[in-house]
């Protein structure tokens, strides 16, 4: 297993591939195939974790990008807010110097209550809806003097602005599947940790896994297959996690010394460069946008009960599926516009065989989103340009 396998792990989670066949043979191995089967079984072969449908990336100020590396033999402790960590705050305090602590904003708030600060706080969400929940019900926390805060370009600006620190950065590479504990484990591994522990990532009680956490459990089990690394579950309670044997915190950090972090960061492109990229994205999608509007209009007429559109709808379906075979276009639509339905159809296919009169439904679903997102992005670019122009005049 190599660093490249972790990169591929991240790419799978970012929905870069429609099938395992798209991954070059030389990069495929047992770890990658395991990750892929988790992707299919628990995520319906589409996480949506990389989507930015509300275009927060445009609203965020340019952020530093790069990675953190840790001293050799470092131990990383991924701290969640489950009951097993709440009952271990004294132990964490005693052993604080023995491990890097990675956590979420809610974890940081919990630790702050015990006078502790994490080394890295990771702000990650499964979807824009979950991100919006965090904006409206934010965790009350602030970074300690040495805390690094890892965000995504799509993290809502309201959450980014809450963090007053020059240690804010976008991790590159990114390993996110939308589930921050798994991302934190991958970051720790990529950064060079030799021991990774979980505390407060309970996922259930009394040994039994709560089914809602099955995807996260599967991801953690996959990551625990990385060789030459010691994994441990330092939580006394919680579900069993295959690959993560129970070990008390005192056993995980036996007299270890505080790991050292080294940051390698670069400045992001200035805003006006990014706006050039956004305009260029819109320009590149002009033809697709035009076709989409026409096909959408036909589908709406079919929805209203007009007949005679069976072959047009079938043609629309075939055209939408064709777009998925062009990897560059696929990336533009998915990562550029934040589309979620077309990418799913590229994976499931659309059944044209049975009821031709129903074919308006997937066309309306996919193209209502596509057309809407293009309009939304155009409007956002116009708003930002207008603001910049007014700023220039002032």
């Amino acid at each position: 297993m190599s660093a490249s396998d972790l990169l591929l792990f991240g790419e799978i989670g970012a929905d870069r591939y429609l099938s395992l066949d798209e991954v070059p043979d030389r990069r495929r191995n047992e770890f990658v195939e395991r990750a892929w089967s988790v992707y299919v079984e628990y995520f319906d072969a589409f996480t949506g974790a990389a989507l930015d449908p509300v275009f927060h990336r445009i609203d965020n100020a340019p952020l530093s990008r790069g990675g953190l590396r840790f001293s050799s033999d470092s131990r990383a402790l991924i701290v969640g807010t489950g009951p097993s960590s709440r009952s271990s705050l004294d132990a964490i305090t005693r052993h604080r110097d023995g491990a890097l602590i990675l956590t979420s904003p809610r974890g940081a708030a919990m630790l702050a209550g015990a006078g502790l600060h994490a080394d890295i706080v990771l702000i990650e969400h499964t979807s824009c809806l979950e991100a919006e929940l965090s904006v409206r019900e934010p965790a009350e926390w602030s970074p300690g003097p040495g805390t690094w805060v890892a965000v995504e370009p799509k993290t809502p600006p309201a959450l980014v602005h809450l963090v007053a620190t020059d240690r804010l950065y976008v991790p590159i590479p990114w390993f996110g599947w939308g589930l921050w504990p798994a991302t934190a484990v991958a970051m720790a591994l990529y950064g060079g940790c030799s021991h990774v522990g979980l505390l407060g990532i309970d996922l259930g009680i009394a040994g039994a896994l709560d089914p809602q956490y099955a995807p996260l459990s599967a991801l953690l089990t996959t990551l625990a297959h990385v060789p030459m690394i010691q994994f441990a579950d330092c939580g006394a309670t919680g579900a069993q996690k295959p690959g993560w044997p129970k070990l008390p915190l005192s056993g995980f950090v036996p007299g270890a010394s505080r790991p050292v972090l080294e940051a390698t960061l670069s400045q992001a492109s200035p805003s006006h460069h990014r706006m050039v990229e956004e305009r260029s994205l819109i320009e590149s999608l002009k033809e697709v946008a035009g076709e989409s509007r026409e096909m959408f209009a036909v589908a709406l007429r079919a929805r209203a009960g007009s007949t005679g559109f069976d072959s047009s709808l079938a043609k629309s379906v075939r055209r939408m599926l064709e777009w998925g075979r062009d990897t560059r276009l696929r990336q533009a639509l998915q990562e550029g516009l934040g589309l979620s339905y077309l990418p799913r159809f590229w994976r499931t296919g659309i059944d044209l065989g049975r009821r031709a009169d129903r074919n308006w439904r997937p066309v309306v679903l996919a193209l209502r989103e596509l057309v809407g997102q293009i309009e939304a992005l155009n409007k956002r670019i116009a708003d930002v340009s207008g603001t910049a122009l007014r700023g220039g005049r002032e």
Partner: protein
Amino acid sequence: MSLRFLHVVESLRRGGIETTFLNILRAFSDLHDEAPLEHHVLAFSGGPLEAAYREAAASLVIASSTADITLCLNRRYDVVNLVFDRCAHRLAPLLLARFDGAVFYSKGYDMSAMYRLQGGFEWCAEDALLAACDGVSFTTPDLARLYDLPPGRLTALCKAVDFDSFARVPAVSEATPNRVLCIANLHARKRLGDLVRALRLLLKVVPDAEMRVVGEGSPFEVEKLQQEVQSDGLSERFVIAGRSDDVAAEIKECRVVALPSESEGVPTALLEAMSARRPVVCTRVGHVETLVTDGSEGYIVQPGDVSAMADYLAEILLDRALAKRLGEAAHARALKHNLKPVAWEHLAALRRAAAVDASSLA
């Protein structure tokens, strides 16, 4: 022609939508229809309502993996009813791509609707989903107006309550303690700390007043509220009762129900109290004002206005005639949300979606 429905819920936990939908499902079974109807349920995860759902539905499948869900969907259903946004976003693309039957989206006051109503969150994927389904229902006309949908595909339903069960709760009597009840899961958005502060003020004018909170919460939230109660020296008067399996029995022992939340949809707890002739004191949030008119069935205050809440609670506890008048008005208002007529309308909307499906075969 018989019809097979599959209703998809996210979990079988005790929550507003899961409990409300269970009541609707039970009402479906009581409705007599000329055609045989089968109601099946798919839940992504289990919970305490499992036994109740098994009893109410023709079958219950609990499945979270793609393979198991697909197996369930492969049994023939005429209509798949997706309850709330998380279920809809997960399953609708697959259904709309590969499924013959109608797809119906029962969109209540879920997270995406709440944020849309509050402003600042427009989500194209949600609009696309609503546009592509064969039918959509909302729990208030206000919500329906937020989305641009053709009238034939949308139904504005009422929030439903098991009125008959709660109407049987005995009226307030002289023996009823001066108790304020709050039925709410312990969550920061419920602002239950405001009840502690309100009780402190209330005790100055109603010395035998007491407060009881019934609902589930994380150990963290329970501990936090307990600490507030203890530091105010109110442990004798403020009880955090935990979950209750018999909300009607809790309501029987109170004179008024309070809900101090900063965010709500159409609260079931208020409707249950109102059905049982209890006046309510609640906050001006969400769609509360579709249930309660200030001064008519109870009182409405701004979130965080603890002294206004305490004043109104005192008024109700001290003035028996006022409390009775408000309670009767609340009862009459709650009748409009009676389960059976709402369930009938909901079922009619589901059948219309199936009929649209059938007619397109012609």
